[in-house]
């Protein structure tokens, strides 16, 4: 039985794409077939983490949305780019990085209903165990759609005043969409905070399960976007937290 999981954050810069890529790698490491769909059409970026060169991004999600190809044709097998022994598979449906394509989406919009069909087609065509949707920050239509079709929602926030309000709204909206599983992930927790304490306080504030609170990691910053952190640093506290999240999502 397959699962659709959306990864969302109210604001950008929370580490959403990075977390999505690491979740995909950890799922695939346990032998699952994973599809990742980059619906952040306005500012795509997750393809870099999967080692996909700019010239290899096509065909993309955009081509599917304009009816140029099927969604399965826009899925790239990036398993070999992860840099680790992977028993499962990771397929990426990237968003186009062409300026013209991005401008067209902003100008014309697209039928968000196609996303719903696309995700379902992808799951069926590639026989996926997991479909991960990397969403656009904020609360636009395609984000609401993504949440509505998901079996699980991961909301990422940083311990930052600006994140608190938007996250609260997202939690409430998701509740109204009756997402079966919703967990929070507190990312980039500065060393001055105790992660266990942070986890407890966030849980209390939102009355929502916090899967993990990940400490700020210099190694993660240093790796930048040049690879999958969880595979390179399997014993890092960040990786440990991500594994807890993976286990939670597989329940």
């Amino acid at each position: 039985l397959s699962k659709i999981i959306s990864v969302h954050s109210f604001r950008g810069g929370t580490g959403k794409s990075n977390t999505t890529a690491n979740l995909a790698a950890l799922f695939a490491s346990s032998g699952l077939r994973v599809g990742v769909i980059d619906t952040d059409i306005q500012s795509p970026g997750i393809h870099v983490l999967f080692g996909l060169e700019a010239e290899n991004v096509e065909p993309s999600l955009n081509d599917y949305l304009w009816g140029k190809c099927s969604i399965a044709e826009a899925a790239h097998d990036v398993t070999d780019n992860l840099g680790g022994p992977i028993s499962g598979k990771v397929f990426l449906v990237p968003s186009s990085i062409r300026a013209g394509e991005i401008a067209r989406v902003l100008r014309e919009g697209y039928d968000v209903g196609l996303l719903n069909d696309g995700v379902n087609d992808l799951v069926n065509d590639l026989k996926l165990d997991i479909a991960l949707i990397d969403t656009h920050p904020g609360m636009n239509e395609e984000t609401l759609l993504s949440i509505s079709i998901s079996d699980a929602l991961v909301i990422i926030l940083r311990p930052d005043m600006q994140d608190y309000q938007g996250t609260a709204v997202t939690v409430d909206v998701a509740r109204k969409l009756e997402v079966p599983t919703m967990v929070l992930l507190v990312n980039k927790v500065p060393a001055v905070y105790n992660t266990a304490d942070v986890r407890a306080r966030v849980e209390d504030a939102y009355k929502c399960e916090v899967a993990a609170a990940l400490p700020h990691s210099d190694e993660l910053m240093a790796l930048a976007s040049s690879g999958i952190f969880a595979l390179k640093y399997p014993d890092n506290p960040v990786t440990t937290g991500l594994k807890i999240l993976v286990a939670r999502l597989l329940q």
Partner: protein
Amino acid sequence: VTPPGHTNLIAHINDWPIAAKITVLCTAIAIVLASALTAIGYSQAAAGLSQQADKEIEADAHIVETTIDDWHRQRLAVLALGAIAPAMVHVAEQGDAASASDQADVLAILTNIAKRNPDIETVGVMDSRGNYVLDVDPASLGSSGAQYDFFQQAMLGHEFISGVRLSAVTGNPALYHTVPITNATGDVIGVLRARSSLTTVTQIVAAADGRLGSNADGVLLDANGLVIANTLDESWLLRPTVTLAPAVQATLLTGSVWGPDGTTPPALNDTELARAIGVKRPTVFDWALKGVEYHSLAMPIEQTDWTYVAALPFDTFEASARDILHLAVIAALVGIGVAFTAGALIAQRLSMPLQHLTAAARLMVDSQLSVEQATALMQTVDNDEIAELSRVFGRMAREVIQREVGLRSQVQVLTVQIDEAKRGREVAEITESEYFQSLAQRSREIRARRPPKPAA
């Protein structure tokens, strides 16, 4: 391929404390330098002393040689002066027929010569047939000496110095100096001959005994290698150095070298010493006698075919070199000791601050370093690199400690502030839209169509 032992040693040395490495390095350098300098010093000193010994031996031998030569020269000169007296010519020519006044004059000359030269035992005139015609020692008169080399050589016009032989008259070793007596036309008409004891020659050689140093010795050999005089053993007198060739032995017996009825005494059988016989120029050679090693020089005597051998035991001058070596070894050991001590002190001085620094770094890793300890490092005096490193490390450590202390005091309690009124407004804005309503509706329908999930 590096042998495994070698690698182990290197690895082992790498594990040593810096102080041990510096000390061992200083000591090793000192040992190499001290050994090299001692070896060079000793070899130079030994070579110098050996050269000096050569020169001293040669100088000493030269003294003996010139003294003996002078002695011969003086005898020949006295005889040559006497030989030109007119009375001497008359007596040689006429024998007993010469006038009484000539005979008296000649006898006066001969007596005068004998008196002025104490080691001349006798001096006399021989006629052209070898008969003794006038002599201060009447015992010779009436006999003939025609068979002797000293007569034959003088008759040929040469001044002659004979070999040493036992005198038929005295039974003591003696030698003969002869000069020719010539008439007005230059014909040799007789011979003036003197027989001298070896007293002076023996004294000259004896004077060399111990002159160069303790146990310095001298040996005077004639042309056939017979010992004329020596400082080692009286019984060597007239004994041959090595066994004589039969022809030489026969000649010497004919010449009554060992007395009128004498036999050849046993040879010394000293082949090393035999190398000195008849040398034409000063020659250095090694000579061992009765367990003593001699550094020796053979010096030819100019007036004769004699050779004087000066000998100095190696021990005499090598002892000095050994003394120098002993001193050098003691100095080297002291030098190595000083280098070891200095190396150890310097090493300790160098490594002490490093040890402090290392200890501080270990404490720092365990967050045990105190601000006071870091401050103490900051206040390191001296101006070398280690001191500077200590100061820099101390400053860095203090800053880190202070920052950590500051951070610890700032550990914050997260407060999640949410504006609930605003939250409600924003949620309502989204959820009250038509799009959201239909989405929620559709979502419910889709979920309802899905088969129920199996229990986790």
